[in-house]
């Protein structure tokens, strides 16, 4: 597709379960970003990939959160032992050049942990 695609658009899970969120960036974009957004707040940086490697993962809140991008395209954000506080919109963005370039966002995956 032409834009950043995120699946699922909505995910409801129970506390303690494992969740995977997928991001398919714009073709040819080398940089990929994950953000988390709570209601009424700005997006909060989680992790940034340049190619296959994580260039900056300083925003991951704890070791329950992990992200991969094995082939430099699709990325998966993985959350273990989910907690109610993990409930948020998870946004993915991609960029052609990374630093100093426009980020194109997907529509997000809304995670609700019951």
């Amino acid at each position: 597709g032409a834009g950043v695609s995120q699946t699922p658009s909505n995910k409801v899970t129970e506390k303690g379960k494992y969740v995977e969120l997928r991001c398919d960036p714009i073709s040819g974009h080398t940089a990929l970003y994950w953000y988390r957004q709570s209601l009424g707040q700005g997006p909060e940086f989680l992790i940034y990939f340049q190619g296959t490697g994580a260039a900056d993962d300083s925003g991951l809140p704890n070791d329950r959160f992990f992200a991969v991008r094995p082939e430099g395209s699709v990325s998966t954000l993985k959350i273990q032992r989910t907690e109610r506080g993990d409930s948020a919109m998870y946004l993915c963005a991609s960029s052609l050049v990374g630093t100093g370039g426009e980020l194109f966002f997907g529509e997000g995956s809304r995670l609700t942990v019951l």
Partner: protein
Amino acid sequence: GESVGLHLPTLSVQEGDNSIINCAYSNSASDYFIWYKQESGKGPQFIIDIRSNMDKRQGQRVTVLLNKTVKHLSLQIAATQPGDSAVYFCAETPGGKLIFGQGTELSVKP
């Protein structure tokens, strides 16, 4: 920690008027700034950007002003329309990642 903040959380304007949304940033090392628009239930959408070697940039109905001396950004929207109603975020890029502010909700009254 690093932060980008907005002076006004909400702004209500009459259709046809000009809107000005302000933003303060904290990181002097940031060299690239972006304004995003986010409608309810959607991802942020790029509006306009500016690099630190510029103090003004114009787009279609939008202008961004950058004052590096006081670390201040503003977004001006000319002839505001109902479709402009959304939350607007400024963002800065120190070291690759984009850091967002809290947002200003713009409401346009017909």
